[in-house]
Each structure stands twice: as C-alpha cells, then as structure tokens.
C-alpha cells in the first residue's frame, strides 16, 4: 500500500501530541516532543523514496543506478540536529523549573504561576 509510510508519520505526530497533552512530567513531555519530531523524519524520507532505488552512496555502485533523493536525507540530518538541541534546551529548562518550584508536573507549575 503506497499510503502507509505517510500514515505512520501522521500517527507518530498525533501520538506524540497526545503524550504532550496528557503529560504529568516535563521530562516525559520532552520525550513526547521528540516523538512528534520523529514523524517529520519519516515523512521526509518517505517522500524522497523511489521504487527500486538504493542509497545515494556511489562508493560501490554504478553512478547510473537509480538512487533515492539525497536532499531529503540532508534535510533529515538538519532535522535530527535541531531536535537534539531543542531537547537539550528544554531539559535544562526542566531542571530550572524543578529547582525553582520543586515539581516537574506541568499542571502544578501552572497552578503556582496562576
């Protein structure tokens, strides 16, 4: 079925979003955000795929072989780096929140802040 990889991307997005909405812990929330971001990798790589094509690495194949799109792979690489940095920043914010308010539950943080 040619639709399935896109559906997987959509499902990852929604399931990660569900985790964020219901999260009771900031660390868990950051992990859920990385699940949402994983959906973009799946979508990008799925879009660039060609039937019967191989990876765009010509070290041991002829340059005439059909290959999948190298641009989406490059974009995915950027995506992964951005995800890691966003996660790092959010985790340090979670550390801050825990030290200041003594809790990691987003609901209690909201209550403290009014």
């Amino acid at each position, binding site marked *: 079925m*040619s*639709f*399935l*990889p*896109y*559906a997987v991307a*959509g499902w990852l*997005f*929604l399931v990660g*979003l*569900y985790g964020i*909405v*219901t999260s009771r812990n900031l660390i868990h929330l950051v992990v859920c955000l990385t699940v949402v971001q994983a959906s973009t990798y799946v979508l990008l790589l*799925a*879009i*660039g*795929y*060609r*039937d019967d094509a191989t*990876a*765009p*690495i*010509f*070290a041991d194949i002829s*340059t005439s072989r059909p*290959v*999948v*799109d*190298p*641009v*989406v*792979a*490059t974009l995915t*690489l*950027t995506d*992964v*780096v*951005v995800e*890691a*940095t*966003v996660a*790092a*920043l959010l*985790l*340090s*914010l979670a*550390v*801050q929140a*825990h*030290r200041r308010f003594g809790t990691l539950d987003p*609901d209690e943080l909201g209550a403290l802040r009014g």
Partner: protein
Amino acid sequence: MSRRLRLVVFGLGAAGLAALFVWGFAELPHFGDFDGAYGQLLADLTVPERHATSAVAVSTFDFRGLDTLGEEFILFTAAVGVLVLLRGQRAGETVAAEPIRAHHPTAESRTLRSVSVALAAPVLVLGAYVVAHGHLTPGGGFQGGVVLMTALLLVYLGGTHLRVGGMRPLTGMEAAEGAGAAGFALIGLGGIVLAASFLENFLPFGTTGNLISGGVIPLLNVSVGFEVMGALLVVIGELLDQRFLIRRGDQ
C-alpha cells in the same frame, strides 16, 4: 482546564487533524513515485563534479553548505544556551559542582567500569573513521561526532568524576566546540579568498574514492565532528553537574 476537558478538546482537534492528514497525504505522490529533479541533479553531479561518493555528504557540505553552517550555529547557540541557563543558576552556589565522594569511582559496578573502559578506545577509532570517511560512505561529521562523544562519555562513566570539579575536561570540550564552529566558518571564508564565493571549494578534488578527495568536504566534516562532540559533551556535562547539585541539596 480540567484534564477531562483538555482530553476532549484534544480528541476533537486530533480527529480534525487526522482527517486533514488523510486528505493531504492522498494528494501526495504515491510512495516510491517521487519525481524531484533537484535531488536527482545533485546525485548525478556528485561523482563527476565533486569526486566524492556520498551524495548526502556532498549536498550537505557543498551544494547546501550554507544551510549546514546555519545548522551548526543552531547547535552552537543551543549549547551556549544550556550553559547560560544552568551555570547562571549555579552562580548562587557557594561550592563549585563536584562529586560528593570525589576519590571513589562513580561506577559502583566493576562490570560497568571494565566494559566501558574496554569499549572507549574502539569506539573512539570508530568515531574517527566515521568522520574521516564522511564523503565516501554514509557518515560524516554529525554522525561521527556523536560516536566520538560516546567514547569520551564511556571514559567518564567507567572512570571517576574526579576531574569534574578540578581539571574540568569540559573546558577542553568548550574549546573543541568553538574551534569546530569557527573552523567551518573559516573554511567558508577561505572560499571567498581563494575561490569565488563563500564555502566554494578551493582545494584539489583528488581521485574519486580516495580518503583525501572531495576538496574541502573532509575538512568540513572534521570541523563539524569537533563541534558536535564538544557541544554534546558540554550539554551532558552541565546536566550531570546539576545532578550533583540537586543531590547535595537533598542532603
């Protein structure tokens, strides 16, 4: 908003979003049917014009090198952001972050210690290999930098936290991070000075398939490798320091 109400609102929104996804995905080209001319062009130019064999590395570091420069500075800025957030907080502490029992190994388990020490050197070699062969095979500075970071982290895990407070190898990591980011920009400037434009190749391309080939791409890979390794270790080191702080706060 109560949790139940929030779930209901989310359920409605998610259902709408799912419907939009189905609608949108149905209009996308069928999986495996992609017909983008740009990527194909880059793949076709990789070997004849750049003498490298990894089309992904060539589009990352050459055809789209400016994007990668921006990406590298995102990483740099984020690491600096983590430092500012976590160190600023520590400024109020009377004692610098250091382990509670500095002279004891942090890893209580002998197995953990021996396995991580035994793994460190092979992982380091693997990381250097992945960085060095970025223009030939899958890999490169980003991937190899993460592997290098793991090697140093294994030393940390298997050894002691001893140096976290004293000598601080983290200072060296900050230097590695800065050098990596600056190196990328300097190689880009070299393109202006020695060739026609920013990030343009100014070295001979060499023979396709050789370790030294592809012009400046291997150099860019090495600088990204340092940058990634340094930035990740700085971030992880800061988060580990926090752990000591928090534990001391509990006592």
